C-alpha cells in the first residue's frame, strides 16, 4: 500500500484515502483513472498533488470532494466514512466542511463578486446576522473590497480566482480542494494566489489540497503527493 504521509504530527488526518479505484468507460475504451490510491492528509497542511497529465489528479480531488464516487476503497473526511452519506448529507458536507476552487473559477456570471462569495451561505440558508460583514471581510482579505459589486465578466482571471478563494472559505471549511487553481493565471498571479492560501492556512487553520503541473507552484506546498498512472508514486 502506498501511503504518503505529510508532516504536522500529532494532529488527526482530515483526509484518509484507502485503496481507492476509479474506472471510466468511454464506449469500448476503459480508463483506470485511479488504481488503488491510499494517502492521508493531516490537518492544517498545504498539500500539492502533482503528476503528469492524465495521472488522475482531478479524479482524486473529485472523489475526495464528494463530487464523484470511487468504485472501491474508502475515503474518510475528518474521520467520517463518506460512503455512508446520502446525497443530502453529501451536499451538507460539501457546503459546511469543504471548499472548492476550480481551474476556470466557476463563478456565476449574473452575480456580483459579493453575491458569488455569499452564495454558499445562501444555499445553506444560514443565519443572516453578520453575514454581510463576514463576506466583506473575506473580499477585503483577497484584496477585492473595492470590487464587491463587479460581475465576474468585469474582473480579471486573477481577481476571479480570488473571489473563488473567498467563496471557498466563506463557510469556514476544514478543507479547501483546488484543482489546478493557477493553471489559467500567469505565474505572478498564480504566486499571489498561493500566498493567499498560506495566509488563510495560517490565520484560519484551513487545510488546502491543490493539484498542479507547475513546479514553481509545487514548491509552495508543505507536502507533496505524486501521482503516476493512477497510483501514488513513491
Amino acid at each position, binding site marked *: 500500500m502506498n501511503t504518503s504521509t505529510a508532516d504536522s504530527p500529532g494532529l488527526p488526518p482530515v483526509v484518509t484515502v484507502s485503496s481507492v479505484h476509479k474506472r471510466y468507460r468511454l464506449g469500448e475504451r476503459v480508463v483506470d483513472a485511479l488504481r488503488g490510491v491510499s494517502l492521508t492528509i493531516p490537518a492544517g497542511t498545504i498539500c500539492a498533488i502533482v503528476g503528469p497529465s492524465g495521472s488522475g489528479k482531478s479524479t482524486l480531488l473529485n472523489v475526495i470532494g464528494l463530487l464523484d464516487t470511487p468504485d472501491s476503497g474508502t475515503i474518510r473526511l475528518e474521520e467520517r466514512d463518506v460512503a455512508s452519506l446520502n*446525497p443530502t448529507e453529501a451536499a451538507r458536507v460539501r457546503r459546511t466542511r469543504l471548499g472548492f476552487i476550480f481551474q476556470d473559477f466557476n463563478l456565476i456570471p449574473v452575480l456580483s463578486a459579493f453575491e458569488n462569495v455569499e452564495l454558499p451561505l445562501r444555499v445553506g440558508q444560514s443565519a443572516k446576522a453578520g453575514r454581510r460583514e463576514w463576506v466583506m471581510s473575506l473580499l477585503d482579505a483577497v484584496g477585492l473590497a473595492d470590487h464587491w459589486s463587479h460581475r465576474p465578466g468585469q474582473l480579471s482571471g486573477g481577481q476571479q480566482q480570488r473571489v473563488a478563494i473567498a467563496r471557498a472559505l466563506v463557510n469556514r471549511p476544514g478543507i479547501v480542494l483546488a484543482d489546478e487553481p493557477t493553471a489559467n493565471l500567469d505565474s505572478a498571479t498564480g504566486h499571489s494566489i498561493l500566498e493567499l492560501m498560506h495566509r488563510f492556512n495560517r490565520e484560519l487553520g484551513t487545510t488546502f489540497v491543490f493539484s498542479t503541473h507547475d513546479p514553481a507552484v509545487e514548491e509552495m506546498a508543505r507536502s507533496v503527493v505524486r501521482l503516476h498512472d493512477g497510483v501514488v508514486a513513491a
Partner: protein
Amino acid sequence: MLSLALRNVVRHGRHTALLAALFALASLLFIAGNSLLTHANRTLRTLFVHTITGDFVVAAPSDVPTSLFGATTPSIGELITLPLLSRLPLLTAELGALPEVERVTPLVSGAAVLDLPGRRLTVPIFGIEPAGYFAALPGIEVVAGRALQPGESGIMLTERLVRRIEAETGRAVNLGDELLLTAAQGQRFRIRSAALVGLFRYPVSMDFSDEIALVDAATVLALNEIQRFTPETNADAGGAAGALSGPTTIADVDDLFADVGISDDAVGEANGLTVDDVLARVMGPVPRPTSGDEPVGTSVLAPADAPIPVDAHFLLVRGRVTPAVRDRVATLGGEILSWRQAAGQTALLALLLLIAFNGGFVIFLLAVSLAAANIVLISTYRRTREIATLRAVGAELPLVRRIFVLEHAVIGAAGWLLGLGGTVVLSLLLAHREILVGNRLVATVIGGHRLRLPVDAGTVALCLLVVTAIAAGAVAVPLRQVIRKPIVEAIRER
C-alpha cells in the same frame, strides 16, 4: 430562496423578457377571449331565462331536437309540427305544486305571416297565457299600450320591429290595429286576426328576438290546428265559435272572407293555392276559446278556474331542475329542455363558440407550452454549469429545483400581469370608445351590437394558474435532465 430566484429573474433579463412576452400574449388572449365569451354566455342566459325560456322548459318527447322556435334546424316558415304536451293541465298543476318550482306557464309555438301596414313578414309567434307568462318572464318590458289580458285575443310586438317597419314603410302602426296572421303548412293555411294591444322590449336587443310576436294562446292554437283539421271538429269548433265568442268571431269571419286576396299572396309565396285550400279556409273558422272553453281538437279538459290553454307545446318553468322535478316530468310524459336547448340556435351557437374557443385555446396553450418549453430548455441547458456550481458548493437538489421552478413561475406570473394589464386597457378602451359589431350573427352571439369586454375574475384567476403552471412545468423537464448529470461533468461544460 425567493430572493435568489427573483435575482435570477432580474439578472437573466433577456430570457425573462422573452418568456414574459410569450406568457403576456397568451394571457391576453386567454383573458380577453374567455371574458368576452363568458360575458356573452351570461348575457344570453339572463336574457333567455328572464324573457324567453324561463329556467327550463318541459316539452313533449320528440325525435328531432326542438326549441321554442320549433325544430332546431329548419328555417322559419317550414316549421315542423311540434308535438303537444299530452297531459298539460296535470303537468301544470303537479309541477306548480313542487317546492323547487316557482312558476309554470304554457307556451304554444308557431310561425305566421304577419301583415303590418305596407309590409308582410314571417315571424315566430308565441301563444301565451298572459298572467302566468309575464309573471314568469319579468324581463319583458311593456313600453306602449298594455300587456295582453287573460282571456283576451290580441297580439304584442316588439317596439323595435314596429319602429323599423314604420321607418321603412312610412306608415304608422297603431295600437288597436287588427293585424292578420296567416299560418301555412303544406297545402293548408289559416288566417286569424288579432288586435295590437301593446309593444314590448327585451332588455338586450338581439336581431332575432325583435321579431317575436306574443299572441294569446288560443289564436296560436287555432293557427296551428291545420293538421288536426277534420270536418267533425270543424263543425264543433264553428259551433262553439258562434255560440261563445260573439262579435269577435263575426269580425274574424269577416276578416277571413275579406282577406282572401291577401292570403292568396301570402300563401302563394310559399306554395301554390288550391281549391282545397280556399275551401279549408272558408270552412275552418276556428273560435278563440276563452278560459274554460271547450277548445279545438283537444281531448283534455282544462281546470275550470285556470285561464290556461288546454293544449301547448311547452311549459316554461321558473325554478330548479331536481330529481323530483325530473321524475314528475317523466311520469307525465314530458321531457326537460335546458334554457339553452329551448333558446335554440342562438344560445347553442354561443355555447359552441365557447367550446370551440376553448378547444382552440387548448391547442394555442399547447403551442405556447411548446414554445416556452423550448426557450426554457435552451436557457436551462445554458445554465448547466451554474447548476453544477450550485451543487458543488452544497446546494441540495430540492433547493435547486425550487429555485428554478419559482423563478419560472415568477416569470409566468409577470407575463400574466402584463396580459391582464393589456386586457384591462382593452376593456377600458372599449368602455369609452363605442365599437359596434355590424355582423348580426356575431352581435347575437356576443349579446348585443356594442362590443364590450368586462374582465371576468374567474377567467383571470384561471389564467394565472394555467400560465404559472406552464412556466413551472416548462423548466421541470430540462432541469431534471441537467440535474441528472454528474457534477464533475456538468461543471466542465461551457
